[in-house]
């Protein structure tokens, strides 16, 4: 950009920062600007999507001549100080960060806490200043999230200025569906919702079904507790998802599609609604973005509180207005889905990766994960680090007992330790990490001893965990593993749809068994019973919820068995 842009304050307006008082802070900043007699042309103050470090909200970033700066945890009373700081540094005005560059471009320099005072102690905001060169920011590689935190999620024009819908236009005007699918195949992208099915293959399966209508669905029913990657995308860059979904529709020959979002995400829903309205106001996808009469119609469907609707056949039931109960597969939705038509279902993050893949090429994306394989191999001792099938970046939500909670996007293959300790800062108070829970109620626990494991599909699966959708909950020394397993089993009991026996009744019995361990009243025979029932529920349940419900138990048993044994009575009850 050659034209000088005004200095700018970017106020995070995603839900974590809203909950922490972001709206009031932004109002106060606007008032403070007016009070200081400044014009919007010299100091822009705008809402943007997620600025990543959710645990320190409300976050505000300033773009000025010295680069970007970030503050967290400010109260409205400090607005005037912030305006002054932004204004002073912003003279003369500096160009905005370019669309493709990530906010922090500096090399990784390990600085202990993100809140280390950088400026002199005379700076009244020094203790609120967050260090953008901290690994939490500097090790991120934003692909899916490249515009999150840069654009106003409610503003289509800002999205367009950052290149939204340009790849859709290119696809429809210049590329055949087959060419689009080939690019996706080349990228090596796998489903980011947890199962990791190759995206290109799924697209081909739908596209190559016998002639007839097809549908596309974006799965935004992100239900894993501790996971908020999709919410970040939806709240920060809704047009990114819509573009990805529209491209998918083009690639498989669909003219109708749905975005399914869980009702627990009201802000994401509101922003998607607005985004869809903006598109229909401009005449729909065809007219507005492709210059063709392509009649693609996308609709929003909102869930109503059912974790199981993240399972694709249950999701389809819910879209059709029914109980979200899964049905046996095959036939897979790609063969027979909504109304019997082949239906492509992709997770939000998966679809959001599509536009950059088409812009930069599948090979570029595939190189991201592969490039990291070598570096990941070295520090790992004994841990599996094969990243054969794990390419590109993955968004993780980091929470729990960790110092820096928030959203990170990193190349697959990065060691778990880098994310948890280097980026996340380890456990609050300096205690050692006990384990990291990945993959939510379907996932497992990686003990501290295996933290050098690479974050990729195969390595995680080989440890009895799963990469999952990306929720990453760090556990400190005080979390008892039988209690954690009981917690997740309770979640599955609540969320089981009740259709098949092993999940409906088996999880209840597993929870009751785990209660005995939590209470320290178990007997040695209970451990056998626990393992046998876990095996049964895992093998015989109808859908993924039941099949993976025992995973947290099995994973904690595998790595923390002594904690279960310690909960067993020595004497049998009857003696």
């Amino acid at each position: 950009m050659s034209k000088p842009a005004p200095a700018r304050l970017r106020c995070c307006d995603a839900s974590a920062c809203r909950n922490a008082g972001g709206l009031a802070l932004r109002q106060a900043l606007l008032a403070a600007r007016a009070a200081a007699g400044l014009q919007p042309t010299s100091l822009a103050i705008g809402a943007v999507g997620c600025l990543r470090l959710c645990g320190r909200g409300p976050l505000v970033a300033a773009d000025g001549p010295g680069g970007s700066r970030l503050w967290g945890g400010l109260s409205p009373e400090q607005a005037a100080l912030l305006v002054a700081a932004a204004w002073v540094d912003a003279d003369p005005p500096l160009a905005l960060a370019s669309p493709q560059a990530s906010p922090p471009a500096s090399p990784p320099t390990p600085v202990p806490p993100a809140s280390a005072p950088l400026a002199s102690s005379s700076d009244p905001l020094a203790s609120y200043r967050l260090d953008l060169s901290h690994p939490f920011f500097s090790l991120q590689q934003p692909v899916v999230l490249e515009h999150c935190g840069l654009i106003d999620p409610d503003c289509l024009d800002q999205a367009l200025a950052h290149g939204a819908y340009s790849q859709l236009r290119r696809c429809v005007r210049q590329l055949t569906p087959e060419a689009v699918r080939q690019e996706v195949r080349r990228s090596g992208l796998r489903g980011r919702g947890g199962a990791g099915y190759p995206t290109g293959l799924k697209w081909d399966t739908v596209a190559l079904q016998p002639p007839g209508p097809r549908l596309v669905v974006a799965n935004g029913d992100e239900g894993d507790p501790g996971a908020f990657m999709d919410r970040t995308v939806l709240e920060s860059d809704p047009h990114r998802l819509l573009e990805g979904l529209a491209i998918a529709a083009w690639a498989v020959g669909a003219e109708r599609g749905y975005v399914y979002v869980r009702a627990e995400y009201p802000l994401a829903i509101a922003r998607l609604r607005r985004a869809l309205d903006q598109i229909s106001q401009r005449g729909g996808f065809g007219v507005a973005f492709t210059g063709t009469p392509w009649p693609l119609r996308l609709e929003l469907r909102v869930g109503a509180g059912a974790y199981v609707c993240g399972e694709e056949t249950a999701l389809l039931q819910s879209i059709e207005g029914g109980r979200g109960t899964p049905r046996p597969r095959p036939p897979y939705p790609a063969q027979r889905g909504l109304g019997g038509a082949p239906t492509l279902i992709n997770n939000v993050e998966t679809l959001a990766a599509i536009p950059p893949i088409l812009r930069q090429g599948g090979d570029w994306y595939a190189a991201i994960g592969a490039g990291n394989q070598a570096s990941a191999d070295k520090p790992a001792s004994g841990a599996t680090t094969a990243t054969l099938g794990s390419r590109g970046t993955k968004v993780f939500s980091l929470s729990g007992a960790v110092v820096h909670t928030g959203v990170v996007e990193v190349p697959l293959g990065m060691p778990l330790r880098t994310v948890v300790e280097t980026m996340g800062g380890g456990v609050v108070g300096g205690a050692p990490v006990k384990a990291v829970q990945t993959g939510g109620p379907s996932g497992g626990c990686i003990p501290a001893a295996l933290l050098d494991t690479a974050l990729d599909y195969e390595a995680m699966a080989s440890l009895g965990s799963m990469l999952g959708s990306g929720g990453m909950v760090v556990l400190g020394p005080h979390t008892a593993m039988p209690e954690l397993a009981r917690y997740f089993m309770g979640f599955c009991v609540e969320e089981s749809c009740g259709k098949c026996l092993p999940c409906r009744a088996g999880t209840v019995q597993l929870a009751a068994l785990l209660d005995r361990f939590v209470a320290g009243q178990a007997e040695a025979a209970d451990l056998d019973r626990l393992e046998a029932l876990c095996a049964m529920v895992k093998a015989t349940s109808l859908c993924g919820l039941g099949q993976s419900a025992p995973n947290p138990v099995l994973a904690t048993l595998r790595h923390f068995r002594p904690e279960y044994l310690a909960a067993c009575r020595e004497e049998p009850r009857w003696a």
Partner: protein
Amino acid sequence: MASIGTPTQRGCSGAVAGDREAITRLIQLQGDDPAALIEVLHQLQQIEGYLAARSLHQVARQLRLPLSRVYGVASFYHLFRRTPPPVHCCAVCLGTACFVNGALELLAVLELRLAQQARAGGWVLERMGCLGACGSGPVLRLDQGLAIRVRLAPAPKLDAQLEAIGLPPLGRATAR
């Protein structure tokens, strides 16, 4: 804000309850499409505060769905209420991050506290799935507001914290 009901929708309860025509119109806006059942139920709950049997009956009629199917859907999803909402609701987030940071202990404290307050203030304690505020746990939802970082603390300190976020103060008889 989106036009969907939240689990603790209140304030509008009773305002237009029983407005059959309003329900007819909202279903018509969905094209009388049976596939829009869940959206219709969301909007119905927004109007009436909960899903009354009489209203479900009307929904079934107009969407030409069996009664039991409508009931099956209304009772399947956690966010639909089939009884009038409580005057005040305090929901504890039981997401993993909140769990790790002591949500269960907090729940136990609140259970005790609100058991004493329930009759007087009309408070109801609920458990919620992950609210997605994982960076700020433990999290409470008090009516429509959100209270974050409700850390466990010794009784007087925690009591003060809970009062500060809007829970009814402890009565004399129950004060420790």
